[in-house]
């Protein structure tokens, strides 16, 4: 029996070279990947940066030199930070590197942009007569409501609509998930169609209907309309969550002495809390940023919401005060951002236990 000789490597393997190659390749690929993503993120983030810097530094008109200076400082800092992140492998030293870069950048920004920051654009918070300070009479006839009225109206609109959507969608989702009734399949298909339906096409009919009902120019009317438009999606989401709750624990609760309603509240509802939170947040955000129906249905100044306030700030016969607009914009966006930051932890938590298999 002859043995074929396998070509074995006689020379000792250079592990250091291999490791260095792998390190280089890893850094290259990670760098390219993050570089591409950063490039993609730039068009998304720079407008926000524009908004914030102009809100704090602009004078009437779009004075954006602060923005460019900020970018001129921030972008090299980011590039430097990513190089540090790629090259330094030790976590502690890397963190120290990041902190150092952040501190230096903050210092430079303080010198470059600091002197130009002011709060003049935020005067609408304490001085409702924004219209007088603008370049010319706006289309509203000269008088603006206080931004706080608009803020409260927005809050009421979004909040009430959120409560309505959550209550109705939860109950509807439970019923569709658990009960067989004639027309169930048609109803579900109808929900999908409704969700895909462009609501814009209904503006005129809704306007007329609100007028006839007598709810025109009321927040209540807008709440009903927006809640109705948000419901199909919300019901679908809640149905999905209820489908995932096993029938077993409801049956168990019923034999344990709970009526159907008690079983629902004590045992089933806690399982779908995450779903309820999700649709609540979506509904709130939708209500907060609603513009089309608010513009169509609300007229009187006391009924303005934040979106209308922003709109009228922009609509100006003699030229727009973009600095004011961006300040109002930042003020408008802030609650949404805070809401997301507070609740994202809960949205990503999902636990299922107590049911085997």
């Amino acid at each position, binding site marked *: 029996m002859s043995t074929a000789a396998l070509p074995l490597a006689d020379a000792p393997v250079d592990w250091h070279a291999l490791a260095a190659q792998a390190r280089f390749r890893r850094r290259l690929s990670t760098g390219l990947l993050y570089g591409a993503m950063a490039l993609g993120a730039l068009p998304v983030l720079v407008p926000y940066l524009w908004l914030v810097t102009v809100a704090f530094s602009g004078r009437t008109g779009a004075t954006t030199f602060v923005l460019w200076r900020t970018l001129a400082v921030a972008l090299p800092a980011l590039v430097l930070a990513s190089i540090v992140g790629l090259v330094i492998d030790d976590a502690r030293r890397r963190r120290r590197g990041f902190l150092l870069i952040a501190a230096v950048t903050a210092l430079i920004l303080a010198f470059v942009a600091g002197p130009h920051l002011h709060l003049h654009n935020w005067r609408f918070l304490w001085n409702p007569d924004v219209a007088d300070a603008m370049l010319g009479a706006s289309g509203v006839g000269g008088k603006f409501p206080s931004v706080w009225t608009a803020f409260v109206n927005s809050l009421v609109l979004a909040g009430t609509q959120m409560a309505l959507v959550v209550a109705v969608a939860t109950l509807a989702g439970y019923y569709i998930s658990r009960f067989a009734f004639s027309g169930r399949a048609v109803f579900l298909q109808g929900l999908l169609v409704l969700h895909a339906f462009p609501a814009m096409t209904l503006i005129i009919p809704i306007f007329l209907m609100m007028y006839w009902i007598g709810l025109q120019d009321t927040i209540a009317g807008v709440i009903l309309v927006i809640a109705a438009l948000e419901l199909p999606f919300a019901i679908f989401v809640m149905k999905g969550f209820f489908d995932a709750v096993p029938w077993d624990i409801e*049956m*168990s609760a019923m034999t344990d*002495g709970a009526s159907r309603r008690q079983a629902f509240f004590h045992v089933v509802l806690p399982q779908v809390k995450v779903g309820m939170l999700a649709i609540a947040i979506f509904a709130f955000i939708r209500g907060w940023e609603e513009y089309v129906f608010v513009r169509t249905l609300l007229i009187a100044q006391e009924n303005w919401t934040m979106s209308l306030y922003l709109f009228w700030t922009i609509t100006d016969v003699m030229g727009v005060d973009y600095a004011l607009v961006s300040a109002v914009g930042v003020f408008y966006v802030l609650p949404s951002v805070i809401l997301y930051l507070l609740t994202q932890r809960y949205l990503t938590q999902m636990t*299922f236990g*107590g049911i085997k298999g």
Partner: protein
Amino acid sequence: MARIELDRVSKRWGEVVALEPTSLAIENGEFVAVLGPSGCGKTTTLLLLAGIYHPSSGEIRFDGAPVNEVEAKDRNVGIVFQSYALYPHMTVRQNILFPLRFRHASAQEKDRRLAEAAALVQIESLLERLPNQLSGGQQQRVALARALIKAPQLLLLDEPLSNLDASLRLAMRSEIRRLQRRTGVTTILVTHDQIEATTMADRIVCMRHGRIEQIGTADELYGRPASLFVASFIGAPPINLIAGRAEDGAFKADGIALPVDGEARGDVILGVRPEGVSLGQGPLSAVVGEVEPMGRETLYVLETPLGTLRALEAGAQRSFGQGERIQLGFAASDTLLFDASSERRLPARVRLAS
């Protein structure tokens, strides 16, 4: 503790009949197993008794009183589901106390009963855990405690041992039996595992396709099965079945004629259990096909003129090897004869003329 009666109770879902009209009586304090394959209607029966399903016809009685109209929450029935159905967002303590929430008991009463229930199933140390922090066996014990804390009239168990591993199964078998004896509660166990049924229950109700095949003790189902289905379902390894014809007082199959004691006519099926086949002596000659050692016994697969038969030999000695030609016999009292079309057992035995 209650006497349970089902009087011609049936359940249908539209066209599908889950349970044919069934009558059954269970005595106070009895432990009954409902045994059958999947889809035989056993879980339906359980849920009808619990009040979660409403019967399509017939009457259910607790202690002689009809309870068809009584809601599930008022029936005071404890039920342990196959998946245990513990409430995932509540601790073990809250899970067990849940039935008492709707009963207006004082705080001391609740604590006392919680302590009793926890001691009964030995989970005192687990009270503050969440269900997803418990093992399968622990979850089951919590489910049992929750079912027992309300001192139920009736305890229903839906395949309680099927999700447990083999060693835990053995321990929980005696555990559940001990609990039942100690509390004296009327218990109905639903299972597809005949070992569970025969080892735990006082009486067994064997079901198939929504119909009761036989009710009796384990011995009765084993020794005097009412039908072919019961005979094949009970007993592992399963009974040997040989098809043939009974005419002129003899069982004829493949050229062999054996005398029949009793009434039998037409196409019949002869049943002999593997443990009833005596190896080494007898008038039947056979060739050993396969030898399967199982530790404390050996299973032989034998080719005989009557067809393929299985036989069990007790002990580990393995007297016969593969390919050997041996003699077989069986006692008349170990034979069962079934009518081939109705599948009912006939009052007849088959003798081996020796």
